[in-house]
């Protein structure tokens, strides 16, 4: 199944849309969680820093600046401190606060563990102005927040990646499965269009929407098939039932004809009537014959036949008649066309096509019957350079009783090419009428 078709399927598109929506929601969720966690961690740090700051300020209020200076120098723990005098000079600790600043601030300080001064660390600092004009800075590393937030972000990144991969795979699987079933429907429908009325859409047994659709289509095909059969049966039944009375009528007229030798006018009228009845009966026989051929019963007697040899015999038989009408009938039948078939029917098939070409072309026309090998199969073409058939009507010439407007005045029952179509179908041949530019070309493709 072609790649591009897979990506164009509706189920794949649907999967892609869901995937995009899911990705967006994962991103939003990530942002919200990040904001909440970030705020929470900041609040905890602030609370710790505020507590430490309050403890130190209490000491300052009770014992003064020197006490504070001593405490800062000796106090351990995770906090960093800074004590500046009114001139802004750092007199204790390591965090120099901006002189004018008061309240919360973020500062970037050199990493205390690595004295090279290269790396820095973000700290959250609370600056409190002292009543002597100095300021106390209590800071805590923001590092405490970095770990969990980092872990959180990477977890979300992995989740997102997994979502994308699984979603893409799931979408492909889903759509390729749907596509396979639709492909099965399409090929079944195409088989039916090609004339295989027995074809049906396979059901998977999943009892899902596609199965329901397949069942509905199959019911529709059953109905069309039964209507078609009834349609054919009506034609055959009429032809069959009318044959007997018409035969008797012809026999009575013929008996009477024998007694009318002395009256030539009556005899001529009787002869004409008999000829008309025989023409009607010939048409009925052709309808019944098409029905017989279509029933496929003749397949049992199939033998090896070379269609090129059959065609050569036909050309030889029709050549004098063609020449008499000022047309040339040419055989280009060097390539053998072996197939399993019914010689008698194949003879009639080629004869009817050549007959058709001879009857519907003017004097001077050239008709070529040619064979060619095509891969494992072969091709037989009967082409003429006569007036041809309009494109819209070209394929309809195989229909029963169909006659081109231009052909209505020529004798014929409009069944010759229907017999051809029935015989070609019986032999599994593809047949088509093409533009020979100018003229008509009828092509038979053997599927061996």
């Amino acid at each position: 199944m072609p790649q591009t078709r897979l990506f164009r399927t509706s189920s794949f598109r649907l999967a892609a849309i869901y995937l995009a929506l899911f990705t967006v929601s994962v991103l939003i969720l990530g942002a919200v969680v990040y904001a909440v966690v970030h705020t929470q961690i900041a609040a905890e740090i602030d609370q710790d820093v505020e507590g430490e700051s309050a403890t130190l300020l209490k000491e300052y209020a009770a014992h003064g600046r020197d006490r504070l200076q001593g405490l800062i120098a000796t106090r351990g723990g995770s906090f960093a401190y800074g004590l500046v005098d009114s001139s802004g000079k750092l007199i204790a600790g390591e965090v120099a606060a901006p002189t004018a600043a008061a309240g919360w601030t973020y500062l970037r300080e050199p990493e205390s563990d690595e004295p090279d001064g290269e790396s820095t660390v973000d700290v959250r600092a609370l600056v409190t102005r002292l009543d002597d004009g100095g300021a106390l800075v209590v800071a805590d590393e923001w590092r405490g927040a970095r770990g969990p937030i980092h872990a959180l972000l990477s977890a979300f990144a992995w989740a997102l990646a997994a979502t994308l991969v699984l979603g893409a795979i799931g979408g492909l699987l889903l759509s390729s499965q749907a596509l396979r079933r639709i492909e099965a429907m399409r090929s079944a429908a195409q088989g039916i269009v090609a004339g295989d009325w027995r074809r049906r859409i396979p059901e998977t047994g999943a009892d899902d929407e596609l199965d329901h659709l397949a069942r509905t289509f199959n019911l529709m095909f059953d109905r069309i098939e039964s209507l078609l059969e009834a349609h054919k049966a009506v034609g055959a039944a009429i032809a069959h039932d009318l044959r007997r009375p018409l035969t008797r009528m012809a026999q009575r007229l013929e008996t009477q004809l024998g007694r009318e030798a002395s009256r030539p006018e009556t005899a001529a009228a009787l002869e004409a009537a008999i000829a008309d009845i025989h023409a009607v009966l010939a048409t009925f026989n052709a309808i019944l014959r098409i029905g017989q051929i279509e029933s496929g019963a003749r397949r049992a007697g199939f033998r090896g036949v070379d269609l090129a040899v059959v065609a050569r015999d036909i050309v030889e038989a029709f050549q004098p008649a063609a020449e008499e009408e000022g047309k040339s009938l040419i055989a280009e039948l060097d390539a053998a066309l072996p197939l399993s078939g019914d010689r008698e029917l194949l003879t009639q098939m080629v004869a009817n096509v050549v007959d058709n070409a001879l009857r519907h072309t003017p004097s001077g026309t050239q008709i070529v019957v040619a064979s060619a090998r095509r891969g494992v199969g072969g091709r037989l073409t009967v082409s003429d350079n006569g007036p041809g058939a309009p494109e819209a009507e070209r394929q309809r010439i195989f229909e029963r009783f169909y006659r081109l407007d231009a052909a209505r005045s020529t004798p014929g029952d409009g069944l010759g090419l229907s017999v051809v179509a029935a015989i070609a179908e019986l032999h599994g041949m593809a047949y088509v009428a093409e533009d020979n530019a100018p003229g008509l070309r009828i092509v038979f493709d053997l599927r061996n």
Partner: protein
Amino acid sequence: MKILIIEDDEDGAAFLASGIAERGHEADVARNGRDGLVMATGAQRYDVVIVDRLLPELDGLSLVKAMRAAGSATPALFLTSLSGIDARVEGLEAGGDDYLVKPFAFTELMARVTALARRPTLGAEPTVLVVGDLEMDLIRRTVKRGGQPIDLQPREFQLLEFLMRSEGRVATRSMLLEKVWSFHFDPQTNIVETHISRLRAKVDRGQATPLIHTLRGAGYTLRASN
């Protein structure tokens, strides 16, 4: 000729019997298969038996099979309303000698019946056919008229051979299509007519007495004199 008609349809049988009688032959009628078999294998010798395929009591195919089993070699012609493609093959396999699909022109039936009645008995197959001054050597595949060789295409040779073998009898269009071309259908194109006219040009042109004659509405015949 004495002909046995085995046909259950009253009108059909009457039509056949009266047509045969009008042409100066005798006809007996059997109305079902069992009676037909008794008559066909009885004391009365018939030249040809005309058998309908669909008969009460005993169908046509079984009847002819039984006839052959009883040692009767009387030529049998099947009539069938089955425009069956298989009908002919089945008929021939059952021991029938020819078949005709209803409806048919009476001249067609008579031409076929006559051909069957005068069929040469089994024996030495002739190697040379002679009609008047026309000679056909079946071994060398050569044809001469008045000692002058005539050059014929293979199909023309077959056509002439068939006409010579049925000298003096009618060969209808469809008989020729079947026997010479193996066409069991009737093309719209005048295949037979054009081939006959070519053959005529080779055989009869410049000759005082034509041998190939057209019988209007019936077919062709080859004979030495009128």
